[in-house]
């Protein structure tokens, strides 16, 4: 028992060291003093908004900042323009009285990928389209802020659970004018087919152009939670002046962010800018599109892989579901694609050790390996085609099977048989090692 205790002490010591390192690093990353700078902007689309139809002679260029007659919308940052891994941005502005105002906020510096596999039957024809939509130009952060009076509409949409729809909430809020940046992103549409899946292709490219309707679906596919894309934060006064404290969550991309205030299609403010910074060990993951404290995945991988070594299964079984559960902003495609190569090294060193004592049947290994090569060619494409919910529930069933296997390996019948097998294994391994030593 003493030796067991020693092992535990080891783990605790390692965990303590890592944890204390994490705390020290967190203290270093105290928010930097941000310069107070207010940016005053004026309406850009003043011409379209204010020019009467009859006055066709008015030159459009007269609507320069500062002299726009009526100045439909203005917005400025009231306070810090720099936040550190999230924070609050204070906004004040002026809009025409009696009209709702929406703030469109997005990350200007970083784009991420969003994809969605459309296999829902068409409501009219019942035909399943099987089209794979993909964009590389979804902003890493996108959110529409609405007046606080519209909170009930957001709550109503939230009641639908996973079935919420971006297009529906935008329609309910009347915020069509504020959905622009994702709508401008070119979207690749691929016609998937069974044959294309077999040969590991995404399918035939149908189009590569912006598509506002699809971009709303992709926005949901990317951000998943309604709270991440809409919020009711604007205090709108009857005279049209407004203030807002915009909460920026932690884990968002570093760099420049833009805010534009929208009243309707023709009336919007010029963009204003603020900056988000991150400090090591919080690092922005370019492909995952989220900032993350790297200490956490390190500790998690260490603990899980160690346990994987003990139970005789690679860590991937536990690491994948834990990563997608604990870090919801990591796309499951990235998780699966990044965990896979981490086991390559240990597999390679295992093969090297066995091959050194000539303990591998190359014929058998390569024979089945070729079939697995084909499987490994197809699998990664299927990852993109399923949603996170499907990923999780499929993984749930896989783990149930694995738990069954583990249980079977502790039953008396298996243990008795395994004892014999292990004895033979040891005997053969000894012979192999001796033979290798002789050479």
């Amino acid at each position: 028992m003493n030796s067991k205790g020693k092992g535990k002490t080891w783990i605790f010591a390692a965990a303590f060291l890592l944890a204390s390192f994490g705390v020290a690093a967190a203290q270093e990353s105290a928010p930097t003093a941000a310069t107070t700078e207010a940016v005053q902007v004026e309406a850009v689309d003043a011409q379209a908004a204010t020019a009467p139809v009859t006055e066709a002679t008015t030159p459009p260029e007269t609507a320069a900042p500062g002299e726009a007659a009526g100045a439909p919308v203005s917005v400025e940052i009231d306070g810090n323009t720099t936040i550190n891994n999230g924070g609050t941005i204070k906004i004040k502005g002026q809009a025409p009285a009696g009209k709702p105002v929406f703030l469109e906020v997005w990350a200007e510096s970083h784009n991420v990928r969003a994809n969605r596999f459309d296999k829902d039957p068409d409501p009219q024809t019942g035909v399943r389209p099987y089209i794979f939509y993909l964009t590389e130009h979804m902003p890493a952060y996108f959110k529409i802020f609405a007046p606080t009076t519209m909170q009930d509409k957001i709550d109503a949409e939230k009641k639908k659970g996973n079935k919420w729809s971006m297009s529906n909430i935008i329609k309910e809020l009347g915020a069509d004018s504020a959905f622009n940046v994702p709508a401008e992103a070119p979207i690749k549409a691929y016609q998937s087919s069974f044959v294309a899946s077999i040969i590991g292709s995404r399918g035939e490219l149908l189009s590569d152009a912006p598509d506002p309707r699809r971009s709303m679906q992709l926005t949901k596919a990317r951000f998943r939670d309604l709270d991440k894309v809409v919020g009711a934060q604007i205090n709108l006064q009857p005279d049209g002046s407004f203030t807002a404290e915009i909460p920026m969550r932690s884990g968002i991309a570093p760099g420049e962010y833009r805010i534009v205030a929208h009243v309707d299609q023709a009336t919007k403010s010029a963009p204003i800018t603020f900056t988000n910074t991150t400090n090591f060990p919080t690092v922005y993951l370019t492909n995952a599109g989220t900032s993350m404290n790297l200490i956490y995945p390190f500790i998690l991988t260490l603990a899980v892989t160690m346990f994987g070594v003990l139970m005789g299964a690679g860590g991937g079984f536990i690491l994948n579901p834990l990563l997608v559960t604990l870090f919801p902003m990591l796309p499951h495609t990235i998780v699966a694609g990044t965990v896979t190569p981490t086991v390559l090294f240990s597999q390679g060193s295992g093969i090297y050790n066995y091959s050194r004592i000539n303990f591998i049947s190359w014929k058998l290994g390569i024979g089945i390996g070729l079939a697995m090569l084909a499987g490994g060619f197809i699998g990664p494409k299927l990852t993109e085609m399923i949603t996170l919910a499907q990923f999780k529930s499929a993984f749930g069933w896989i783990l149930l099977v694995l738990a069954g296997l583990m249980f079977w390996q502790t039953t008396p019948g298996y243990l008795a048989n395994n004892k014999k097998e292990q004895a033979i294994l040891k005997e053969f391994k000894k012979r192999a090692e001796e033979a290798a030593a002789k050479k």
Partner: protein
Amino acid sequence: MKVEFWGQEFKVNMFVGCIGGFLIAVLSSMFGFGGGPFMVPLMTVFLRLPMYLVVGSSLLAIFFNTTMSTMRHYQFGNFDWILFCAMFPAAILAGFIGPRIARRLSPIVVKRVACVGLLILAMSLLGVF
């Protein structure tokens, strides 16, 4: 197919082996795990091969799958270098520490703990609680 290994000859039903290996490879590359715990029972129970033949050869077969699926995930852009750099050293470190602890623990106890842990994790993934 006949396989010779350390002076003994084994008949291997490659049809079952390849179909099973293919299915395990699709699942494991799709969900990003190794597949060893499924490959070993496939080869011992369904192909009736002895453990000493299976340990090395199953690892070789899985290595094919992992290499290919790594390349494919990379090709589809589903790979993040920074996240990899955070996890890879931890996996290597665990590979060194793990076996040292394993010697001091009873494998049956570890497997029972794993069994319960996996059940809990599976239930939470399936949304039971």
